[in-house]
């Protein structure tokens, strides 16, 4: 319980810091933020539009007041309105967030599903054919940027083989089968970068745990080998896997930005790219804030899961 409270407090503190940094960033940039946001390609914006934007963003008020208003707004869930159409940003985010979450979950699921068994197999036959093959594939997989994977998957599976559509989205409620088909390639694209991470961690930790005395103790008890491996080696490697997944959450979330763009997946990140293109700062700020919230929450989840998996953490 104590552990949960501590992790929770850290998460809240991090969120606060992140929100503050997002706020400050606008003011840290040298020059007038309103002017910078409106200028493009070296053309100076008109005085009136700058003034209008300043009022719109509340930049004409004292900094502290702006900050307090900002913190007040985000804690009540008010993320402001979009530059482009004046629509509330929060509503759009709420609609898109589950889709991004789904993508992340699917990718993580695939990565663990493939990475764990491969890692176990490679470690048990260390130096063997499977190990060599998987390890080489892993170092290659780590070197392919996620948007390249996505693009090449489209080239192969939808342009050449014509097996799946190149991208798009159908709601799960509308057509579950089609929904999964659309989900497949984006999730696999992200997983290609994540599988090697899981694989390497599993392989290393299995090799490490195989040498542990508790494994010898388990064998000395007379447990059969499958049980020794499963309960005293693989089970123990779960906590490092959870840790490494947590460490890669940032990259994973960044990856969704590119993948959603590549596959026209209407999640948060697609909205983000569009907002950045339009330099719709309130929208960008809102989405980044929400994704950071997600990031912090996922990390909190990882911490709690870690505590569940390893009693030493819970009781410290």
């Amino acid at each position, binding site marked *: 319980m104590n552990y949960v409270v501590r992790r929770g407090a850290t998460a809240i503190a*991090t969120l606060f*810091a*992140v929100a503050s*940094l997002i706020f400050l*960033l606008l003011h840290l*940039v040298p020059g007038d*933020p309103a002017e910078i946001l409106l200028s*493009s390609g070296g053309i100076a914006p008109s005085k009136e539009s700058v003034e209008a934007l300043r009022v719109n963003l509340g930049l004409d008020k004292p900094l502290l007041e702006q900050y307090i208003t900002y913190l007040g707004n985000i804690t009540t869930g008010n993320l402001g309105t979009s530059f482009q159409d004046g629509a509330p940003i929060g509503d759009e985010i709420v609609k898109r967030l589950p889709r991004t979450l789904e993508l992340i979950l699917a990718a993580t699921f695939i990565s663990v599903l493939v990475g764990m068994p491969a890692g176990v197999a490679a470690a048990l036959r*260390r*130096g063997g054919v499977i190990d060599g093959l998987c390890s*080489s594939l892993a*170092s*290659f997989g*780590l*070197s*392919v*940027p996620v*948007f*390249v994977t996505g*693009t*090449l998957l*489209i*080239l192969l599976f939808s342009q050449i083989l014509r097996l799946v559509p190149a991208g798009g989205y159908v709601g799960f409620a509308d057509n579950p089968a089609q929904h999964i088909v659309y989900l497949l390639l984006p999730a696999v694209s992200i997983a290609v970068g994540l599988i090697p991470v899981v694989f390497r961690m599993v392989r290393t930790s299995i090799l490490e745990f195989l040498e*542990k*005395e*508790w494994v*010898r*103790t388990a*064998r*000395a*008890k*007379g*447990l*059969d*080998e499958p049980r020794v491996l499963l309960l005293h080696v693989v089970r123990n490697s779960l*906590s490092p896997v959870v840790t490494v997944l947590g460490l890669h*959450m*940032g*990259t994973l*979330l*960044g990856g969704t*930005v*590119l993948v959603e*763009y590549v596959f026209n997946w209407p999640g948060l990140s697609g909205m*983000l*790219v569009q*907002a*950045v*293109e339009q330099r*719709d700062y309130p929208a*960008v700020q809102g989405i*980044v804030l929400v*994704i*950071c919230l997600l*990031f*912090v929450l996922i990390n909190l989840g990882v911490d709690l899961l870690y505590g569940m*998996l*390893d009693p*030493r953490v819970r*009781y410290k």
Partner: protein
Amino acid sequence: MLRNVTLVFAIGFLAAMVALAVFAPLLPLPDPVKMDVISRMAGPSWAHPFGQDEYGRDIFSRIIHGARASLAVSLTAAALAGAAGVIVGLVGGYFQGWIELATMRPLDVILSFPPMLLALLAVALLGPGALTLTVILSILFIPAYARVTYGEVLVVRNHEYVEAARALGHRPLRILARTILPNVAGPVLVQFSLVVASCIVLESGLSFLGLGVVPPTPSWGLMIRGARAYMHLDPMGIVWPCMALVFTVFSVNRLCDHLRDVFDPKARRVSFSPASAIDEDDGARGREAAAGSATDDMLLDIRNLTTEIAVPRGSIRAVDGVSLKVRRGEAVALVGESGSGKSMTGLAIMKLLPRRISRIARGSIDYVTADRQRHDLATVPLNRFRAYRGKEIGMVFQEPMACLNPVYTIGYQLVEAVTAHARLPKQETWARALKALKQVGIPDPERRLHEYPHQLSGGMRQRVAIAIALCGKPSLLIADEPTTALDVTVQAQILDLLEQIREASRIGLIFITHNLGVVAEIADRVVVMYCGQVVEEGTAEEIFYTPRHPYTRGLLASVPKVEDKTGGNKRLSSIPGAVPSPLALPPGCRFAPRCAHATDLCNAGVPALEPVSDSQAARCVRWRELA
């Protein structure tokens, strides 16, 4: 083999890429931005080896110029971030207190953003462009360097030479630059290659989104972005830049792995060539010998046991022709320095030798069950040997910290030992587990059942380990240095416990230790091992009062007379020299290089284990003269 090939490829590819990129303006390449709409998406030709893109621009030239943009941004950003990060890390690590907080804490905020998002946020604010990109990337990767540097500084901060520099009155700046910086250079270089790879990936990703490098500057990300719309017409147009990007990132990663190997030898992978692996159940030993029946109260009768372990430079015999007998209720101590083969003997009995690289090469291990049947354990196949482990023979290991699995409760691990051999109702298994805990004298056993290993002291954990070993009611208990990691008072308690158990259940005990002092309290007979051989054996009395082998005498002389806290580990006189390498054993007596009494005779051949009395034997050609 493969690793070397990839390394050579990586270095070659990177060198070529950098050279081409640097000298691109001087090379006779077509203008990467000159359009030629008529021959758009043309295939390869002499003038355009990789073909032309959707605007008829030369793809090869664009890839080379793309490398220029990509590498310029990435290397600059990685270098700038490196300079800033190292300084932050040095300052944060060297000065403690508020400076440490003020420098290291803000980095955590940067790290709590997914990097891609922070980059997008900044692009939204500043607009895209190579300059924006470089600045953002530099800031993003400061924490990576700062943390590495900080960690290294913490390690070396209190080293003597840094202390010395401080004592000499050197200014902090000079100390940092002269003594600490060289130490962090290696890890920072590794970090640099990591960051370069990350920068290339981020840069190309942002350019791909149209938010990084802006056209008309060629960039791999932009090329992929552009070719995407036409990939059904011109697949190669998209494959070329993808390949350039992937191979570059792969090469940088590979180089980084190599740098890590060089600068961090600990992390280097030691791999045995599969050829040296040993098949445990090779044909010659496949059959299980029925060794007949025993008449006396013999429990374990090892004859001429030899084990082989494959090591990178050959194969070693950690146990070389060892014979050993244990009767029911008898305690035999197996004594020797590390490397003597005593632990290997214990592991061989339990078939717990390191897998795939070791095997029992010769000899027999006869175990006598309660019905007086002899079974040669050396020939029992591994899948059937499980019936002996825990049930006939229990084993306790040295490290009480590591011998219990940290993620399970004590109760679970005890129950496992019970259910491994008996199918019982749940309640009964737990009752047995509780009884086992009580038997080893753990206070408040009901509560302990539900606790985890880390909540127990070392001594308690060792008691639990003994309880686990006794759960299956074995007739033989092998204890491998069970008290070494414990402090002296706890040591004595564990020894008492073992003694008590032996008396109560007439269990045979093999007590493996390097400390003859401990042996006196527990052993009926003592077997002294050196370099895989038994060099002397006898009753405890004989070994202590009339030792015959010079090595045994050396061991005895090195036992501290008074075992108190200060002298517990201090040797009065230790045997000079070190145990020889098992790959280069002396030709004759293996103790000869360290023996004060060695003569030419000693090197003439391995001495035999000669009987000294009915119960004593020594492996020394001069034992009579020296007696």
